[in-house]
């Protein structure tokens, strides 16, 4: 690996935040889709809250992505070749495939969101209600869960498929790592919404917490494996300012503390602020700091 490769100098507040927000939306949608497809009537509340989380998280992402372009007014070149006059996709480029996937995922997120509004009776939209039945909603929940994981994962593949030492050396683990992280932050975002709607108790919530813990433990294992793979190229990530952010923010505050609180609180019934809100907020912060640290340390 050549240390003289150039950094793209992506702005963390656009690209890293997109990786985080998009991953969280994808994780939330995935949980909602799985609850919808396999959870039965009992988990309907969970899937509805999940779809209500996914769309608002996804909405700002095109703004972040277009704002980081050198020529924002040309963003449509990603989908349509201005010279050939036909749609364009480059299957070798995660950025190209990811753009199309984001378009598709956005559409599915919107459908699921509207679908639940109509089902709740909060939105009266005759044509939508007329075509509303269980079969298509399961179809796009299934399609959306796969595109969702793609959205969470392709960002990691995108970094792995570059020549930057840290990003190249951690191949092929950044895709799985971002999927695990998206699952955990998605679950945390749903937990916060459930807490706000005063539904953060009972069996449904415990199942969500169980899933979140599985995701966090997997994330921790994948980070450990990625650090071993990276070897000396991990130095910018584990030392200095980014090291502080990575160890303190992601590992301790974002993973170990929430897991510890879950372990400590496993005997106490019901959910107080410390056992529900604090871990969820910490998990979200940890997920954001993981993306920022990885992107910035790879550009040093």
């Amino acid at each position: 690996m050549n240390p003289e490769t150039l950094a793209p100098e992506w702005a963390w507040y656009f690209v890293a935040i997109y990786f985080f927000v998009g991953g969280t939306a994808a994780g939330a949608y995935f949980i909602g889709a799985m609850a919808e497809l396999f959870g039965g009537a009992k988990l309907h509340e969970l899937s509805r809250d999940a779809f209500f989380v996914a769309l608002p998280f996804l909405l700002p992402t095109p703004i972040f992505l277009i704002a980081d372009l050198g020529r924002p007014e040309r963003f449509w070149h990603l989908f349509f070749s201005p010279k050939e006059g036909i749609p364009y996709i480059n299957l070798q480029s995660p950025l190209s495939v990811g753009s199309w996937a984001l378009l598709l995922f956005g559409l599915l997120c919107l459908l699921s969101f509207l679908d639940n509004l109509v089902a709740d009776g909060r939105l009266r939209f005759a044509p939508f209600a007329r075509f509303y039945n269980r079969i298509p909603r399961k179809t796009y929940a299934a399609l959306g869960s796969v595109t969702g994981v793609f959205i969470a994962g392709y960002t990691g593949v995108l970094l792995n498929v570059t020549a930057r030492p840290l990003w190249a050396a951690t191949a092929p683990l950044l895709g799985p790592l971002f999927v695990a992280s998206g699952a955990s932050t998605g679950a945390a975002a749903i937990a916060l919404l459930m807490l706000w709607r005063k539904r953060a108790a009972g069996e449904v919530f415990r199942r969500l917490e169980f899933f979140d813990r599985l995701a966090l433990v997997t994330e921790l294992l994948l980070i450990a494996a990625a650090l071993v793979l990276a070897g000396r190229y991990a130095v910018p990530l584990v030392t200095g300012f980014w090291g502080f952010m990575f160890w303190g923010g992601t590992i301790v505050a974002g993973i170990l503390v929430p897991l510890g609180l879950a372990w400590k609180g496993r005997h106490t019934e019901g959910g107080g602020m410390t056992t529900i809100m604090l871990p969820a907020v910490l998990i979200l912060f940890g997920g954001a700091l993981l993306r920022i640290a990885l992107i910035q340390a790879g550009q040093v």
Partner: protein
Amino acid sequence: MAKGMFVDTTICTGCKACQVACKEWNGLAPEPKHFGQVTGKPYPVAVNFTGNSYDNTGALSATDWRHVRFIEQFDEKRTAGRWLFSSDSCKHCNDAGCLNACPTGAIIRTDLGNVVVQQDVCIGCKYCVPSCPFGVIAFSEKSGTARKCTLCNDRIHNGLGTACAKACPTGSISFGDVTALKKRADARLAQLRGLGMTGANIYGYTEAGGLNVFYLFADKPSVYGQPERPVVPQQRLPVSSAATVLALVGVGVAALASFRERGDREAEEVHHEP
């Protein structure tokens, strides 16, 4: 027929005529890092000298498409030594990382084998920048697009050679058909080895699918700032994608374990039994 350049660094004198010719022909502005306004001077001047031998740009950039590298090899007492020069540019790889990475089709390969960024198509996503294993292609804040050497696309499609090769006073940079240039490179390598330069080597026959701009070095490629084993980053795409598909399966299993209806159906069936 692929066109390219053979850079025989052993006869380079470090005059930088190639750098000047490149700037002139392509109308490239000075690199802002090394040329700009200072207080007390009404006109822009050279600033931030690299301090490294006679190197004046330090690296390739969006406006420096050619860079002459100066390598001083001296012993401890500075009594014996040699001074190596090498004029570097885009290598126009046959398996080009930047072209593979481009999400808009802005980066193309022309009929002469050179890799060109179409300035009117590029959106400035910067993904090509970290995808070049040689650190060549760069983002220009001024144009908002990615920029690099075009192998003088306009000149070579009109029967001329590249500007740098035309300006080179020693013939260190030569332009032509890649196959003919390779014959010349092989002959020169044999000549140098015959003279006892055992360290001499050709860089670019196999790297990144073969480089249309290749080099004759007197020392290891890393001495000249080139990667010893450049990897086209897209080679990692199949394994990275497969790992992410595995993650999809894993997260699906975790979700099933968490959210699947448990025992409810059986309970219902028991309930309905007479």
